[in-house]
């Protein structure tokens, strides 16, 4: 009986070791290992899109090609690798259902960078009355007539600012060419510093239809009047509202595991009404 117990213990240990080596691989202090980590880490949200959609020109396919190795990883496995295993069980029913749904042969579901189904939630730090405050700012990629795109502020969360609305309508900007570039996300939206300093064209960076929102108007006024001074973006979280039924958030997990970078940290399946409610809450900053 005791020997059986020992054997079972050894099996458990062996499984744990294999499990650890294969799924939670950690790079050691050598250049090859670091490069391996760099290859498998989801480095930018752009790469998250590439892997999710299994795009032909993805970075990971490029690395395989460069090594003359046939790329035969199915899309299911690529999506599976985009979950944060430290928070979500790799075998969860939810994960399996999701992967099965988005990879259906008849009607696969893809992410669209220029689509309406995702938002960036930025936790922004500001100087306010000699202290620091954080205000959530919701941003979205918006397409323009010239088939270009830019990040726009579409929602603002609770700020704790004293309501002081001076301007009730946004001023028309003098130069209509100032934008928060569609790749600003890659540099931690540092371009917000330029945008918030550009008082003359401040309205360029806000979605005008949302200015009826009192929080947004308060925020706009506070920046315009110099009541708050942007310091930096503390954290970015992306919200995806996919196919009218899947909600998930993606955050950056910087760690030594190969399962690192921009990963899905929360997921739920919702009804159509639940989806509308989520979007509405997100945009109103609640």
């Amino acid at each position, binding site marked *: 009986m005791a020997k059986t117990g020992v054997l079972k213990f050894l099996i458990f240990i062996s499984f744990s070791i294999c499990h650890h080596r294969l799924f939670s691989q950690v790079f050691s202090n050598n250049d090859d290992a670091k490069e391996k980590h760099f290859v498998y880490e989801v480095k930018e949200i752009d790469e998250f899109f590439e892997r999710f959609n299994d795009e032909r020109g993805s970075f990971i396919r490029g690395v395989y090609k460069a090594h003359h190795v046939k790329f035969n990883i199915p899309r299911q496995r690529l999506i599976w690798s985009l979950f944060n295993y430290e928070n979500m069980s790799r075998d969860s029913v939810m994960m399996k259902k999701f992967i099965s749904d988005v990879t259906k042969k008849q009607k696969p579901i893809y992410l669209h960078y220029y689509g309406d189904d995702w938002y960036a939630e930025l936790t922004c730090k500001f100087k306010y009355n000699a202290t620091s405050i954080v205000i959530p700012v919701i941003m979205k990629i918006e397409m323009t007539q010239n*088939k270009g795109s830019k990040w726009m502020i579409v929602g603002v969360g609770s700020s704790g600012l004293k309501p002081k609305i001076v301007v009730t309508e946004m001023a028309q900007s003098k130069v209509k060419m100032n934008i928060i570039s569609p790749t600003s996300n890659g540099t931690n939206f540092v371009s917000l510093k330029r945008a918030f300093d550009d008082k003359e064209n401040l309205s360029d960076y806000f979605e005008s239809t949302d200015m009826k929102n009192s929080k947004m108007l308060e925020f706009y006024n506070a920046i315009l009047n110099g009541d708050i001074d942007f310091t930096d973006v503390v954290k970015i979280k992306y919200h995806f509202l996919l196919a009218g039924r899947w909600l998930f958030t993606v955050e950056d997990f910087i760690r030594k595991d190969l399962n690192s970078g921009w990963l899905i940290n929360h997921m739920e399946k919702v009804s159509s009404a639940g989806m509308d409610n989520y979007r509405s809450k997100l945009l109103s900053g609640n």
Partner: protein
Amino acid sequence: MRYFMRSARSLGLLILLFVSLLVSSFSKIYAHSGPVHAGDVVTGYANKDTVRPASGALPGNVSNDEFRKKALAKIKEFQGCLFILCDITSGNVALDNAVDQATSLFIDGAIIEVSSLHSDEKKHLKVRDFLEKFRNLHYDRVVITFSHVDYVSNIRKGSDGKYYGLVSFEQTFRGYNDGRLVYEDETKKTTEVQLIVYDRNLRGNAIQQWDVMLSDVEILGTKRPKA
């Protein structure tokens, strides 16, 4: 006998688990990855995500591949300037030139954000200020190594008509005094790049030319600095 049967069953289970893990694991592809080099970046980036909204070719008859290669060349040029700046044998003239050359690679107003996983503080610097700080580091010897593989994102057309992309890579910095390693850090650097198209007058004819400029940079310390 029963003990052996049970042991065999358990051993079978172990083998099954092991095989199943090997077969099903995404990690099996790691076995194929060997050293990768800068020249190995993705080519032929036909991507629906990029092409759909910004339909048609890039301006100035630039191909996506050319844009990416030029972006990487600019990053390498910038890295080359950093090498000169931290070489203690460089004279003042060489240092001045390296600062000027590195600054000229960036668009006006570009911001460099420096932060670390181990600190809440984030610094925003102008390019020239960043380079001057870099130039004034006091080490007998500095060794900078860059990852051999770079990530280059999709190219995206901005509503301002410019084209944007991202280049990410990793850097290890080591500072030595009296032959001893006295400082070491690891950073992930992401640089935004822009495609600039301009007209050049050649014997009275305006010829459209293009270049890639570096823009905002995020430098994130990923390892607690060893000091």
